[in-house]
């Protein structure tokens, strides 16, 4: 028994560590969206702010990226679901000798690195373009087209896997029955096979859209004039990061949680309804008096969904009226005081040193004055940096500023304006 409870505890510790690794980064990233320093960080916590959200919504490139992502996503969903469905149907009726080869071919794109798919797409369509004698601005070298084509190459494989799983439970006799009753092949497809496949098609479409939305490796070679959100994000993250990205991440996290809960709630509700229908008597069904369970009854996912929705509304409401200016001002005041204290301290030390030097060396003292600049506290003495603080706090895109490039460990600490460079500078060089 003792042994068992030990196993139990270690399982729970393991689970806790695992989910901390899995969810921790997302939570911390979300939190940084609400902290006022212009470098995304959770500690030390300074002020609750919503300004990164407004910064996000004013960022033209991000908004444009979202729009491009939606365009690419829509194209990819249509193309890859269509190809995936055709591929899955073909798989169920292909000549048995060809089956293994065919399966290998259509599953291979999942395993081919995205970079390779991006390059091969680019190279191939460029060649087609040249063979047809079209110019550099033709449809075939359009970033939108190339991205959709490149992404669909492997996303169609995902769709195919999702669709074939459901197709395996499809009875071909249903199509034959429809044909036998006078339907054309197209009618049989539309009225019988398609409704049966609809849940899987919906899953495949969602999967395809998400995969397209987050794809980077392939898109980075093909996007041309149409940088998607992911491309824009990568540019931003590589060349200086701000909490506006955290804000975007937070929005995506909330949307994801929302979608997941909604999906879960609707699945649970369907189960409950099916159960109720099964239990119901013929009379109840016929008279239409069957009482179906309410939306929230015994459906924890639905409850959670409502809670999340309420929380979102509450946060948005707070954001509309809340102003962090007071807090930011206080923090800045405090920082200024700290800095001043520091300066006083240093001055005093220097004064002391100078007095010592004077005592020791007599007349040579004035030459030694700039020695402080190399000491690692250099930034502190520069009044220009201090005045920059207040402006960078409100600046919508402080990342436009070049990184301060101050590699000393301490210089940045006292200077909020340098924060974006303090960490970022280290890895961007």
């Amino acid at each position, binding site marked *: 028994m003792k042994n068992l409870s030990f196993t139990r505890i270690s399982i729970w510790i393991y*689970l806790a560590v695992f989910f901390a690794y*899995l969810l921790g*980064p*997302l939570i*911390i990233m979300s939190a940084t969206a609400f902290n006022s320093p212009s470098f995304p*960080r*959770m*500690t030390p916590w300074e002020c609750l702010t919503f300004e990164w959200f407004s910064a996000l919504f004013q960022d033209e490139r991000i908004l444009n990226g979202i729009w491009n992502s939606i365009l690419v996503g829509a194209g990819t969903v249509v193309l890859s679901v269509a*190809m995936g469905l*055709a*591929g899955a*149907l*073909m798989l169920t009726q292909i000549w048995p000798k060809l089956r293994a080869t065919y*399966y*290998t*071919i*259509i*599953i*291979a794109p*999942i*395993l*081919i*690195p995205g*970079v*390779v798919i991006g*390059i*091969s*797409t*680019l*190279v191939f*369509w460029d*060649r087609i373009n040249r063979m047809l004698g079209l110019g550099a601005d033709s449809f075939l070298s359009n970033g939108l087209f190339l991205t959709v084509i490149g992404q*669909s*190459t492997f996303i*169609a494989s995902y769709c195919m896997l999702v669709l074939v799983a459901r197709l395996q439970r499809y009875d071909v006799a249903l199509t034959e029955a429809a044909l036998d009753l006078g339907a054309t*092949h*197209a009618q049989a497809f539309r009225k019988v096979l398609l409704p049966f496949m609809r849940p899987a098609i919906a899953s495949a479409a969602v999967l395809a859209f998400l995969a397209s*939305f*987050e*794809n*980077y*490796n392939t898109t*980075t070679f093909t996007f041309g004039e149409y940088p998607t959100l*992911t491309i824009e*994000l*990568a540019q931003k*993250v590589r060349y200086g*990061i701000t909490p506006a*990205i*955290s804000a975007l*991440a937070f929005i*995506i996290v909330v949307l994801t*949680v929302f*979608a*997941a809960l909604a999906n879960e709630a609707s699945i649970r509700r369907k189960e409950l309804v099916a159960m109720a229908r099964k239990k119901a008597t013929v009379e109840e069904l016929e008279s239409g008096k069957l009482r179906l369970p309410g939306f929230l009854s015994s459906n924890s996912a639905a409850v959670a969904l409502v809670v999340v929705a309420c929380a979102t509304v509450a946060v948005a409401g707070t954001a509309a009226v809340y102003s962090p200016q007071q807090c930011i001002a206080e923090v800045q005041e405090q920082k200024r005081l700290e800095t001043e204290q520091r300066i006083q301290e240093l001055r005093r030390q220097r004064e002391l040193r100078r007095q010592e030097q004077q005592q020791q060396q007599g007349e040579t003292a004035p030459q030694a004055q700039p020695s402080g600049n190399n000491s690692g506290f250099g930034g502190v003495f520069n009044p220009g940096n201090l005045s920059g603080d207040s402006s960078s706090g409100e600046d919508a895109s402080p990342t436009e500023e070049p990184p301060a490039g101050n590699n000393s*460990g301490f210089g940045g600490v006292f200077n909020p304006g340098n924060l974006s460079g*303090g*960490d970022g500078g*280290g*890895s961007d060089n």
Partner: protein
Amino acid sequence: MPVFLKEFFKRNGTGMGSLMLALVLFWTIGLIILPQLSMLDFSFRPNLPPPEIGGPKDVYTLENYKYLIYGPEGGSQDYNAVDLKVFFRTLVAAVCVTIFNLILCYPIAYYLAQTKGNHIRIFALMLIIPYWINEILRAFALRIIFGETGVLNNALVGLGIFDTPFDFIRNDIALYAGLGYAYILLMIFPIYNVIESLDRNQIEAARDMGASWVKIHQRVVIPYAKPGISSGCTMVFMLSAGALAAPQILGGPSSLWFTQLIYQQFNDNSDWPQGAAYAVVLLVTCILLVLAVMRLFKVNMGDIGK
């Protein structure tokens, strides 16, 4: 018309059959086979300005592959030490990430598959949600944590474990954590799917006969879960080796990933044939490695993706 084609059209109708065939052919030939062949062909050609393409200088050459091994002609070194080092480091690191992920994910997949109850659905949701978040953002999140003034360093210094912040990024720890993080789900799901279909009675029976947990996993669960494990490992390995976002965001300034070299050839040097050659090398090496390992563990290609 061949018999099977006639039967195909008989079964699917001329219109629907043609549409289906067209889509499948476009996908398999137009999107999968021809582009790969085209890239292969391209990698054997010299880097020429557009007007000279197809001209007398456009001949097959091994130049691009030689470059990877020997470096630029007349270079100071005998071998292209930089690129080769990056290449092997990428492969080794990808293998390490795969093994790390397997060790991390096997217990959780087993736990999820063999435990019943409502909290399993919640766990499943919690697993899937991070996977829906953009790859870039996931890397970004880790960068916030592993940064010099990030949460982790603040905590470690605050607790007095380190005196000075540890540079996780320069030491590639952030990169490995990020790659592992990115593909957790791809490792868990195949294993989960297989273990879920394992009859619980088999485990009970083994336990009944006095087998230890280690023994049960070694003799019962792992052999049964082999297709799932190999599927997960293959995907994680291929995706790690082919990853671009995580190395770009989480990689140290001095350490490159092989895909970054390909990216540089394409975007910075505009040397497409060179980039294509590197891509071919990456693809072929990865496939050979995977096939070799699959052969070693006796699993089939057909198990992948299940």
